[in-house]
């Protein structure tokens, strides 16, 4: 069945759509437009129709361009894992609130999961005016299709102007799918979001080429303007438990039978692996010398409540697992404190950590490039300095 709908009462049989169709899927029968199976719902015919007799469930770009004004409000997808709100989403709610105030519109949070009513309250306390609450057993664990289809339906019905998600593994997976189906712009991994005071467009700034350039990107003719936002760039808002908001229960878009992807097991790592959420990271590189050397790194990380990172060379040597790798082919991190031990600081490593707030470098080689981005440095043997530093913190922090 072609997706294109033709309103026979409106059609005047002018044939404009027949000419516009790149596939030859439209023809005139008895002076009325008729569509056949060749139609791919591309939308090319929509603008050609002078009487708006053609309609597609998925609005094409021209269609979107016509009714940009119909889109209003800022939305945030609130990510949760095992019923716990992701801190990245709390940051998003703070940013969403700021953008919504700037556009003088409401902030809506989309909470999907199972037994997640508590998160709706949390979202309101962090700034949401309205919460779409989709609670269903099929949404307990994140899976692309049911999450994406539910959000796509909501966007089509309620037409938000801006839709933000965290640039986490799940956020990137979901946003890429949603934006693709909606035919709208998606800017990945933003580190800056502002509203253009003249046109009201969302100005999305992101690093590219391993952080060597910053690009500011707009989405002028499609809606919603979508962005994923890098973790730990923006301040966490303060919860206001007295804030009031509206919670609207919504049904999920897919039935259990329609869902073909199932999470059968999840293996949680210790906190030392979760680089993305870590405020403090202690990282080791080639200078660590072997798997046993990482024990020294681990002790300091554990004392400070931080995660353990590593350079690519330590991962490639098999000293530590890939989940720990920081840099261009690993994770990009932005902790408050990054302690690089025995890491020379190749450009690919720097790309993954140079926006950390405070960088400390401990390296034997005074010429190591890591010192160019470090706030504090010690030239010396990490096996002497790191244990000594651990001892010092133990005493000074009374741990």
């Amino acid at each position, binding site marked *: 069945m072609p997706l294109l709908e033709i309103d026979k009462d409106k059609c005047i049989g002018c044939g404009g759509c027949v000419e516009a169709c790149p596939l030859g899927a439209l023809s005139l029968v008895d002076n009325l437009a008729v569509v056949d199976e060749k139609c791919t719902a591309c939308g090319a015919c929509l603008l050609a129709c002078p009487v708006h007799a053609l309609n597609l469930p998925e609005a094409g770009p021209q269609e979107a361009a016509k009714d940009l004004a119909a889109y209003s409000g800022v939305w945030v997808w609130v990510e949760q894992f095992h019923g716990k709100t992701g801190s990245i989403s709390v940051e998003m709610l703070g940013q969403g609130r700021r953008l919504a105030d700037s556009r003088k519109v409401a902030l809506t949070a989309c909470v999907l999961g199972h037994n997640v009513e508590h998160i709706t309250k949390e979202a309101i306390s962090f700034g949401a005016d309205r919460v779409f609450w989709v609670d269903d057993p099929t949404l307990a664990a994140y899976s692309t299709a049911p999450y994406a289809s539910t959000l796509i339906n909501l966007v089509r019905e309620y037409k938000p102007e801006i839709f933000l998600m965290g640039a*986490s*593994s799940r956020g990137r997976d979901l946003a890429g799918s949603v934006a693709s189906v909606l035919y709208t712009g998606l800017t*990945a991994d933003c580190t800056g979001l502002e509203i253009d005071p003249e046109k009201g467009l969302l100005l999305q700034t992101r690093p590219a*080429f391993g952080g060597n350039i*910053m690009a500011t990107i*707009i*989405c002028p003719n499609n809606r919603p303007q979508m962005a994923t936002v890098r973790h730990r760039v923006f301040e966490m808002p303060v919860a206001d438990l007295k804030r009031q908001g509206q919670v609207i229960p919504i049904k999920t878009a897919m039935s259990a039978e329609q869902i073909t992807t199932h999470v059968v097991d999840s293996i949680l790592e210790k906190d030392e692996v979760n680089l993305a959420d870590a405020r403090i990271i202690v990282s080791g590189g080639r200078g660590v010398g072997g798997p046993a050397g990482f024990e020294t790194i681990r002790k300091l990380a554990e004392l400070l409540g931080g995660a353990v990172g590593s350079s690519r060379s330590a991962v490639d040597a098999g000293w530590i697992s890939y989940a720990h790798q920081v840099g*261009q*082919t690993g994770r990009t991190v932005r902790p408050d404190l990054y302690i690089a031990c025995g890491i020379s600081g190749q450009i690919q490593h720097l790309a993954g950590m140079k926006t950390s707030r405070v960088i400390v470098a401990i390296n034997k080689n005074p010429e190591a490039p890591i010192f160019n981005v470090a706030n504090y440095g010690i030239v010396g043997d990490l096996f002497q300095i790191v244990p000594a530093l651990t001892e010092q913190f133990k005493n000074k922090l009374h741990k």
Partner: protein
Amino acid sequence: MNIIVCIKQVPDTTDVKINPETNTLIREGVSSIINPFDMYAIEEGLRLKEKFGGKVTVISLGPPQSIKALKEAVGMGADEAIQLSDRAFAGSDSWATSYTLALAIKKLGKFDIILCGKQAIDGDTGQVGPGIASQLGITQLTYVFKIIKLEPEIGKITVERLLEEGREIVEARLPALLTVVKDINQPRAATLFHMRRASSLQIPTWTAADLPGADLSKLGLKGSPTQVIKISSPPKREGVLDLIKADSAEQSAAILADKIIAEKIL
């Protein structure tokens, strides 16, 4: 089994030049490589072929010189390669790129698995894989670092995905698009045998006219919902290096500990 691998040619340098008039990246004159994550996708495709039979087709959207990346993939053992190159594709953002690649994949016919790298190291978006999957209406499995089980006869795949909190084992239905991370394998080097084949292989170049059903208004810059309006340098790191020098490791460590504590992070 029909395996399709999408690859991107990326600059092998971090020195980026920008055309001030168009605000686009100047890629001429910079040596190019296959995006490192895509190397893992190619390798995984070759391993699946070795295990299950079938063929590996690599496709790439890019300027004419991206043929080199495709030849390299054939040199590793890929059976066929398709280049997508046309002025009409120029300036594609991640949406238009996904759209174009999905049209080419539809033209290729029946497939079981599509493999992509988790992201390209120049754009860093990670959006094209999910974009292609959505355009084709197939399962997407991102950040895969292990294919645990593949059962083509019943159309089922089981993979392990790498997430922030740990790992996740997921069962899904084929056909599926997988984006892979570095840990999944160790890419092989090109062999002389395959390199000879690559040098004589005529790789077809498809233009917009070769893609059935292409909506020309959705291709290239014109079809891209996003526009780059400004390129700038990243903010410089503030402050200068405070290099701590003391007589012993203990003293240095003590001074450093005090300075870190004074930053009020701990």
